[in-house]
């Protein structure tokens, strides 16, 4: 799942060499700011076929948080 997420990151930030870890946050990626954040969220939703709630999005501090929520939502689908 982290691989798929990494693919999305690479697409949104237009960088095919981007590597993300559980600790990666907005501070680590130059192009990741409030303007691109929502685009990222939207792409993730499309990729994993889930819908985040606003509160969930607001709680994300790093990639680790995102993955946890993605897993939770994907399981709910099944």
């Amino acid at each position: 799942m982290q691989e798929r997420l990494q693919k999305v990151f690479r697409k949104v930030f237009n960088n095919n060499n981007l590597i993300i870890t559980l600790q990666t946050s907005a501070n680590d990626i130059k192009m990741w700011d409030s303007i691109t954040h929502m685009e990222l969220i939207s792409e993730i939703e499309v990729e994993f076929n889930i819908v985040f709630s606003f509160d969930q999005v607001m709680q994300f501090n790093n990639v680790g948080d995102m993955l946890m929520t993605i897993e939770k939502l994907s399981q709910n689908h099944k």
Partner: protein
Amino acid sequence: MTFISPLFILFITIVIFVNYLLPPRFRYVFILSVGLVFVGFFNIESLIAVLLFTLFNFYLAKLILNNRALFIFGLAVNALAIILFNYFNSTTNGLHFSFTLISFQIDKFIVAFGLSFYSMQNIAYLTEVYSKRMIAETKLAKYVLYSVFFPKFISGPVMLPVEFISQIDNNVITNNNLIRGFQLLLLGVFKKMVLADRLAPGVCSVFDYHSNYSGLTTLVAAYLFTIQMYFDFSGYTNMALGMAEMLGFKLKDNFNFPLRSTSVSEFWRRWHISLISWFTKYIYYPVVFRLRDYKKIAPLIGILLTFFVSMIWHGIGFTFLAWAVCHIIYLCFESLTRKARTEFSERFNNSLCKMLYIFIVFNLVCFSNIFFRANSFDTALHLIKTIGCNFIPDNFYNGLIAPIAVGGHQIDEFNLYITILLSVLFLLFERRIGNIVSSERINIKYIIGSVLLIMIFGVFNSGTRFIYMQF
């Protein structure tokens, strides 16, 4: 009375001293009372207004859980407060330009300005409680302290309740806090008195008492105004953070060397951080989240709405509208060209290019600030026209130096050169100075140097002696 007056200095020293000696459990009550006295000192009506709003928000927060109607009601009341206070100020004084510049003129409408910041904190608080991201505060005293903490009351930084209230219980003041707080306070005083206040008259003379100045003069004045605003506001922030640190509280920093930004988006991440975080979190994100399916449009609408609200908050007038429009255009352009610009900047990445980007961003910001500072839309247009049509002054000395030096004599020229020299040197060495200040050791050279510079070059009597009808 200004912030820098014997009375206030005495007040601060006593407060910090007493607070340090008090056992930690009693400190917040003491600071709370000090805060109430501080607000009430200027204007008893403001104190009553503040207390009423505090009580209103405190009790409302306990009731809004799962009650959408009450939540909207609470938001509306606080938003109304902001509009009311802004409107009140522009009618009583006819002023259009931002509270940030006159935040030092302690007058009754300034405390009303403080109420703008204060209302934003209340909106943040209600939103956090309603979204269940935070539990409503149970101790009224703590909530009142959060609202009325005097270092941040007048002009921010805007703190979220969770960031501040959690510090009340763990209040610890070490020697390092005192040292760092004091050095930070000193830095703020220096920026305000030696840099911002020295730049002010020159800016005023071009923007307020303009005649037919050349474009170059207007441009230089716009540059100086942006720098002045930066020093003024970041200086105030330093003072607020310094005082807070000496009282054992860590407030959010508001500035991160914004004039070194390489894009306008980056500028807004480095300028007035606490305010922009508020706008981002409570306006931008909710809007863009709801529209996130419209990939490219969503950020644009978000930017539009955010700046629209920001404009209303700063003041009501066509000049603020124009200023907001400038930034909306800049940010939308950056949002749409993000990919291209990233590639471009990766290819051209050396320090010379970086300086070019910084220069471009600085010019864009200064241009928008012409609207921000001008007294009316017509004045702003007139000034901008001069940049286009009448750029070079006929007489370099009379057209450029004299207006900005506010006088044609050697002494005025001398003062102007000193001002510019100090500003430029400071901007160049800002980071190093910041490191000295934030280290936890007393730096004797820094303290003596800043106090010396403040005494020899600082402005002690801003404005009171300026008489237009001179001669």
